[in-house]
């Protein structure tokens, strides 16, 4: 049986990014990058377009250096599944300012909506729990999204949420594809030079 949620991914993303303050955002390739873009381009968004499985590790490295700012990794279930080992690596350090939010529709949306492992009842939040994340949730309603946002902004412990969204392909909002540009503007916004 294929399992999917019902939340609107764009509404979820907009809620997480509301009044974002100092929030630093890393997005996984595909729809999560479009979702963040649809909520409004921002200098402190770092959009990945490839390197599948790397969203969590990029956010981890960022959280370990910008220790005073909340860091959100916004990615999809397929992207997270390709980087499951990263949860174990993160579990060794558990930076309190790091939140991983998986927009989990149980499908590979970019490639024709094939069912993913999470659509076959493999629950990502349990992996994060096994990796000693102090806060893991399966989010199925917008109140849960609000709780996640509060938790993220409070930087009170490494957090992981599998957010059960509807499986649908929405109109794409394409972020900039010039990775050097996105990197340089992100660093400039933190007061850092290009090299």
């Amino acid at each position, binding site marked *: 049986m294929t399992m999917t949620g019902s939340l609107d991914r764009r509404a979820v993303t907009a809620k997480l990014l509301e009044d974002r303050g100092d929030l630093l955002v890393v997005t996984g390739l595909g729809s999560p990058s479009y979702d963040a873009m649809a909520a409004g381009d921002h200098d402190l968004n770092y959009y990945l377009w490839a*390197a599948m499985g790397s969203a969590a590790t990029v956010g981890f*490295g960022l959280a370990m250096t910008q220790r005073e700012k909340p860091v959100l990794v916004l990615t999809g279930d397929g992207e997270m599944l390709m980087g499951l080992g990263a949860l174990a690596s993160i579990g060794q350090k558990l930076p309190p300012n790091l939140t991983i939010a998986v927009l989990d529709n149980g499908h590979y949306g970019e490639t024709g909506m094939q069912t993913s492992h999470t659509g076959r009842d493999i629950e990502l939040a349990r992996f994060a729990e096994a990796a000693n994340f102090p806060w893991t949730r399966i989010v199925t309603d917008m109140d849960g999204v609000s709780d996640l946002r509060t938790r993220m902004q409070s930087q009170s412990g490494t957090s992981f949420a599998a957010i059960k969204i509807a499986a649908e392909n929405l109109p794409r909002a394409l972020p900039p594809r010039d*990775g050097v540009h996105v990197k340089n503007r992100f660093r400039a916004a933190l007061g850092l030079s290009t090299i």
Partner: protein
Amino acid sequence: MTAVPAEEAPSWQDEILPILKSFDVRHLVYVPDAGHATAIREAEKDNGITSLALTTEEEGIGYLSGAWLGGERGALLMQSSGVGNCLNTLALQTMTRFPLLMLVTMRGDWAEFNPWQNPMGQATEAALKLMGVRTWRADQPEEVAHLVHGAATMAFNGDEACAVLLGQSLIGEKKWVK
């Protein structure tokens, strides 16, 4: 069978971490190998460095990309087998350009006992070059510090991906005991 390194921490191993620190490396991320044992051990004792074990080598590319995004430098240590795990993820460096310094201890290279190590070991340098990584190779102990210094200079001054391959003859022939 148990692998026993032929030599205990030869002196070139002692040189690695001080060179990295001279470039203000703050993150040492690795999948362990015998040739990196000294650098890893010393980094773990050093409060100025975050040392991090990875489950697979490509995690280090993402991590160092994020650390650089946040303003700090790092280096990635691995065995040559791990280069194969990194290939697709190296696109992250190519497309965003951040300093990526990799130190790679070789297997399947000189006097390899285990032939299963040979396919990736023999393809390591070519695979890195195919993905746009600049490579240097040290086979003599006195070459190591010089080449690591050079690769670090080019990585950190030029936002480049640079790898130093540390030949298997540096580490010594493994003695296999039943």
